[in-house]
């Protein structure tokens, strides 16, 4: 497994949010992270990316322990976070945002070629390359956030609620992109509100509640799981 998380604890100072999360994500697979609002998905993503410190447990990536590494060092190892709320650089142009996506040493060579690939993937971004990212629509900003993440040549992409607030057409674009990442052999960890869609797209899934994994399995199996059905589909 590319990513192995063992008994991970964490949160915001004294406010413990994650109480021992264990999960794994493989190359060329989409792993879905399901859970109600406030379950701890974003906290987990940010702890994996190194933006929040782990209070216990271990994060192993590509066979090496990265639990205590700062965020920049994790990007350098090949972990890219596409954060909830996009977090683009609003006053910088789309092109500069992409350039910054490739600021890790591993990604600096050939960044122009990669930016062109991103423009091919998301033609809207090419049209708006010179505009400030803050002037983009929500959907376009999400494209930019994903493209910026891919600019770092990641092996693992952490996608935190990439379809939140997007129009259906944009949601389709996002899921097409996820499909493409899997085809390219990337590991994708996907936190998603749209449970049906996420389970369709996912090879494996984990259900998180109050900072703990309460169910795990193959996507199709989980869709049939009684607890998941109760919690998300409103059926017994």
């Amino acid at each position, binding site marked *: 497994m590319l990513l192995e998380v063992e008994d991970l604890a964490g949160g915001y100072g004294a406010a413990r949010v994650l109480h021992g999360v264990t999960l794994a994500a493989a190359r060329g697979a989409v792993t879905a992270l399901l859970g109600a609002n406030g379950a701890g998905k974003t906290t987990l993503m940010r702890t994996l990316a190194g933006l929040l410190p782990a209070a216990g447990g271990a994060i192993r990536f590509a066979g090496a322990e990265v639990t205590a590494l700062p965020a920049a060092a994790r990007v350098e190892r090949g972990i890219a976070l596409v*954060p909830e709320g996009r977090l*683009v650089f*609003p*006053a910088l142009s789309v092109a*500069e945002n992409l350039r*910054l996506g490739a600021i890790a040493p591993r990604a600096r060579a050939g960044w122009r070629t990669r930016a062109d690939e991103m423009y091919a993937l998301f033609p809207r971004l090419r049209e708006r390359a010179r505009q400030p990212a*803050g*002037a983009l629509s929500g959907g376009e900003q999400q494209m930019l956030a994903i493209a910026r993440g891919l600019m770092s040549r990641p092996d693992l992409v952490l996608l935190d609620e990439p379809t939140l607030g997007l129009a259906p057409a944009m949601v389709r674009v996002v899921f097409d992109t996820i499909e493409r990442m899997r085809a390219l052999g990337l590991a994708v960890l996907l936190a998603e509100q749209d449970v049906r869609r996420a389970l369709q797209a996912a090879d494996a899934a984990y259900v998180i509640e109050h900072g703990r994994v309460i169910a795990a399995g193959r996507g199709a199996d989980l869709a049939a799981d009684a607890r998941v059905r109760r919690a998300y589909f409103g059926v017994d």
Partner: protein
Amino acid sequence: MLETLAAGQLLFAALALGALYALVALGLNLVYGTMRLLNVAHGDLVMLGGYATYWAFAAAGIPPLAAVLLTASGGAALGAGAYRGLFRRLLAAPRATARIEANSLLAFFGLSVIVQNLAALAFTATPRGYEYLSGVVRIGEVAVTGGRLAAVALALALCAAVLAFLRRHVLGLAMRALVEQREAAAVVGVDIDRAQRASFVLGFGTAAVAGTLLSMTEQVSPFMGFPITIAAFVVVIMGGLGRIEGTLAAAFLLGAIETYGVALTSPTYRSILVYGLFVTVLLVRPQGLLGRRAIVR
């Protein structure tokens, strides 16, 4: 009166003042933007650069144009030292950060007073000046001393270089990212420690160099830094906190307003003009003259 205003001499004076303000305010704004700390002692670095240049010339015969290298590296080293010794350690502890941010103005103000009075003790309060490139050069109808011309040219060139660095160099881009969105900078993998140190190095270095350039046109004195700090402050507020291009534009605007304002009225009104502008901008456009509120959807 109209002839005076249209004169090239005045235009040159406005440009000269603007270039100096730009150089000082760029550094002040960079350190503010990356650290969210407003260094009220920034103008005193200009004073120290001025004295270093004076003594290098008076005691060792080093010409000011060569002393630029000295003050640049001295200021840069001081910046790196201040970051390493003081700020990095303090900012690593979140609770200390909150404390510093709340008290940073007072702490820097205290530091500024100490530095000024130490300078007065060491160098006496007597203003110091030197004769260097004092021959008059004519450009069209404008007559300036060679020293002044060199100082302005160098200030402009340095501003352009800093701007180019921030726009084109990876480290410059990293610094702008940090100014713009600290969290997002961490997300993309900006080495935050390195970028912060770079902003101190660049900010302190340019301030010290501004001191060298200023000493080529004016006498230096222990308390010369404070009005420069205030002017740089006004520029930063006008241009927008953390905004690079805005800072440059605001510096030349303030240089022009001050030069033409004083020419139209009298030097007594200088402070009223500068502070009046400061208060007006704060009230009318707190996000800066050119700044726009970030649009995040």
